[in-house]
């Protein structure tokens, strides 16, 4: 019995709904309401004797429970955590649960992995998926025994009737359960969270054994019979088009099957889909890589060949001098009278903060395997956005999306990069020409020079404190590369006189979401400047920030896109982190503690970093303490801690040394030797995580623990050395002291 309803909402609506409802609303679409027509799913095969209550669950007569994992696994642990939710409500024994990755199919609802949305969108939905199946198993047992269903419970893969001492295993109930109607999802009672036995426990990743034994899990590991190997060279300047290339020579090289120019941009005018380039197809990856070293291309470099970081920076300084409301200086928010407050203030601080473009540098280079056969295609992709991949492939190939099957592989790092599908489009055009399965592999230089970067940015700040030490004015001018601070971004709504000015630099740099987009840099600028103001006010930073957060609990959003800010949750994590970290304890010279806190991706997180800076200026991050409020329930304690530990360490990785230089319309850095990544000796030795449970819906952890780290470290550096880090990466600032 298959009982699936096509998800009638597109991704955008889902996002909106999920945000509005804190996740609860979407689930009804996963499960066929009682009486609704069945929609047969071609990919959910009907196996005799197997109980299939919905798209996500199958229970075999031997008791094995198969749970489909619909969301891409990028290292966020979703392939383990969402099935845990299903298993908890089902009452399954985790030992008998087998998790299988789903292909892209509307039966599974939204299948992207981004924005830390999977947990909030799927938490209640997955509970209902499990609970519905449990209700049917319980009903089957109750009917068998002739007892009321509400006297039976399901736990550890068994249904029990306590009063009569009877019990039946799930496997022995599947035949009967398969004949029962599927109850309406809303009619099924969910467990009392106090009865949870699986959720909140520490469960290892379901693919761990395969990972540590080197099994072929990733996109780059995929193979098909008759597969050929491709590379795709794009112009060094973004938007460049190949005019000619030494294709005949390249085709004559050992192992080379084909070489050709692709002069298409899909979607038209965009830099993040298919862009023009030269393809080389060979018998092996190495033959393709080797042939590429002899490829010579004449490029038409387009309109951006003069862009440089230096020039962007100069333009930003110019814009900073312009008056509010002048061309390209938009007033995004104004409260009170900032100028008046600043002129009458006891202390005024002025500072310019800036950060560079950085790359996602997924360790698994971009790749994709595509097999186009006439009017249909198959894709095996390490994609965070399988539906987007299919849409782009459909556009590029001129093949209807329904005729394109997408298999989502495990992903060697996402961080937002794999929400874009350019490698899929490249492999697709190549396979269409060859008519064979094509595996496209980027090299590290492709990856660094054709990323969709985390944008750099410039912030020109002025703040004022009153004689009583309170923050009276905040004037902020953001010069961005396209996306600016929003009118509600912190500390808007908390400062009586507030002015936000936004400017955009014209540029041709491809950009994309990078772990905690916006927040990952804004948090640094905001919390560092607040720390400057706390010191200007002569107040302890924790006490100053708690006072700023005020005494309101839920601060409503302003304007159409306004978002409420739960100041009570934030004060709570700030207090917790101060207490747990031993904030205020005496430290030797060259040691310091710093606070960072930020609300992003529905999580309220505060972190304290403890650093040591040697007189010569060598930095060590000794310890980081985090207080994390992501709602009422941690799904998988091991996975949750792993995400926070990783976000903290990755936050340090990004802030400490990462920087891309842009010259002549291209990224200068070509490999890891020029783009220093954090290594084990520099990783924080001690990371302490305190989950603060509050009565709020559970939300995701892939991102929100990253933004507070950089300001915590930079504020700790100030405490240790008296030096302010106003420019990222940190390595740009001389931290020596005497």
């Amino acid at each position: 019995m298959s009982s699936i309803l096509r998800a009638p909402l597109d991704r955008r609506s889902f996002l909106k709904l999920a945000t509005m409802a804190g996740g609860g609303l979407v689930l009804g679409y996963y499960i066929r309401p009682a009486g609704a027509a069945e929609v047969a799913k071609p990919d959910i095969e009907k196996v005799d004797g197997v109980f299939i209550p919905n798209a996500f669950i199958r229970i075999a007569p031997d008791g094995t429970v198969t749970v489909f994992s619909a969301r891409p696994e990028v290292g966020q642990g979703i392939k383990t955590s969402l099935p845990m939710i299903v298993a908890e409500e089902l009452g399954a024994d985790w030992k008998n649960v087998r998790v299988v990755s789903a292909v892209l199919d509307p039966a599974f609802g939204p299948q992207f992995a981004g924005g830390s949305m999977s947990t909030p969108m799927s938490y209640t939905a997955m509970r209902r998926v499990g609970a519905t199946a449990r209700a049917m198993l319980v009903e089957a047992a109750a009917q068998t025994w002739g007892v009321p269903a509400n006297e039976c419970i399901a736990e550890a893969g068994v249904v029990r009737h306590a009063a009569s001492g009877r019990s039946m295993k799930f496997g022995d109930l599947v035949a009967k359960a398969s004949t029962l109607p599927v109850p309406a999802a809303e009619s099924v009672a969910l467990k009392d969270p106090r009865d949870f036995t699986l959720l909140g426990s520490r469960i290892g990743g379901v693919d761990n054994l395969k990972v540590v034994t080197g099994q072929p899990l990733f996109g780059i590991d995929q193979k098909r019979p008759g597969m050929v190997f491709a590379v795709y060279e794009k112009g060094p300047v973004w938007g460049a088009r190949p005019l000619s290339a030494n294709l005949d020579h390249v085709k004559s090289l050992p192992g080379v099957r084909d070489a050709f120019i692709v002069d298409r941009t899909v979607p038209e005018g965009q830099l993040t889909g298919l862009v023009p380039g030269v393809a080389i197809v060979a018998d092996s990856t190495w033959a393709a890589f080797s042939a590429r070293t002899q490829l010579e291309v004449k490029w038409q470099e387009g309109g951006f060949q003069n862009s440089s970081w230096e020039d962007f920076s100069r333009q930003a300084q110019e814009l900073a001098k312009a008056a509010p409301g002048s061309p390209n200086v938009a007033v995004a928010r104004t409260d009170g009278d900032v100028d008046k407050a600043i002129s009458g203030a006891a202390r005024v601080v002025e500072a310019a903060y800036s950060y560079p473009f950085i790359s996602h540098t997924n360790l698994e280079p971009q790749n994709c395997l595509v097999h186009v056969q006439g009017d249909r295609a198959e894709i095996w992709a390490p994609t965070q956005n399988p539906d987007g991949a299919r849409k782009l492939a459909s556009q590029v190939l001129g093949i209807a999306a329904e005729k394109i099957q997408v298999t989502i592989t495990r992903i060697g790092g996402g961080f937002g990069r794999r929400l874009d599908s350019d490698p899929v489009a490249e492999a697709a055009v190549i396979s269409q020409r060859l008519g064979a399965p094509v595996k496209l592999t980027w090299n590290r230089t492709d990856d660094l020079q054709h990323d969709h970067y985390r944008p750099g940015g410039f912030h020109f700040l002025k703040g004022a404190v009153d004689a009583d030490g309170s923050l009276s004015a905040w004037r902020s001018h953001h010069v961005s590369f396209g996306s600016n601070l929003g009118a509600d971004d912190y500390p808007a709504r908390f400062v009586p006189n507030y002015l936000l000015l936004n400017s955009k630099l014209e540029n041709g740099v491809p950009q994309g979401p990078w772990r905690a987009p916006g927040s990952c840099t804004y948090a640094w600028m905001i919390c560092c400047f607040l720390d400057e103001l706390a010191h200007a006010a002569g107040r302890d930073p924790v006490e100053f920030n708690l006072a700023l957060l005020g005494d309101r609990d839920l601060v409503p959003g302003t304007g159409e896109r306004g978002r409420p800010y739960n100041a009570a949750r934030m004060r709570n994590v700030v207090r917790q982190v101060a207490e747990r970290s031993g904030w205020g304890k005496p430290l030797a010279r060259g040691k310091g503690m710093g606070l960072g806190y930020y609300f992003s991706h529905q999580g309220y997180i505060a972190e304290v970093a403890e650093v040591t800076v040697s007189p010569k200026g060598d930095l060590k991050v000794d310890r980081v303490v985090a207080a994390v409020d992501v709602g009422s329930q941690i799904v998988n304690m091991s996975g949750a801690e792993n995400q926070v530990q990783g976000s903290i360490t990755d936050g340090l990785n990004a802030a400490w040394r990462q920087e891309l230089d842009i010259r002549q319309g291209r990224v200068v850095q070509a490999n890891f030797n020029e783009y220093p990544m954090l290594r084990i000796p520099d990783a924080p030795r001690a990371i302490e995580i305190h989950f603060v449970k509050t009565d709020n819906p559970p939300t995701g952890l892939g991102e929100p623990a990253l933004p507070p780290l950089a300001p915590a470290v930079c504020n700790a550096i100030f405490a240790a050395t008296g030096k302010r880090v106003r420019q990222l990466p940190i390595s740009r600032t001389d931290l020596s002291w005497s």
Partner: protein
Amino acid sequence: MSKFTLQVNGRSHEVDVAPETPLLWVLRDQLDLVGTKFGCGIGQCAACTVHLDGAPARACLTPVSAAASARVTTIEGLSADGSHPLQKAWCELDVAQCGYCQAGQIMSAAALLARNPNPSDGDIDDAMAANLCRCATYFRIRAGIHRAAEMAAADREAKA
């Protein structure tokens, strides 16, 4: 093209490839041993770490011609079933996030434990600094190595 006989994970393989082909691509494309990963191709990430005669080596920088005289061990050959103490510790402590770097991490750590059964944090820093983890699981990698050392010591004791 030239013919080479490779000893990989205790088995003999004949391959016919250009002599300068890196061992990495022979393993991945010719021998279907894809546990060894490509990350940078220039010896900067150690995702491709294998053992040549027991010593850690970057497969992306090792031409197949140079590998032919050595015993090659890849992650697939570290143990048949995930029973090496590092593999067990990695599962127990749930070290991986995306997992892409972990074969290289484990191979580097295995070489470390083979010569230093009880490494200090400093020893770990020295032996593991070449291995990038983009997901930044360093905290658990360190804990995983200490745990594996403990497990191996317990095994030795049990056998003694």
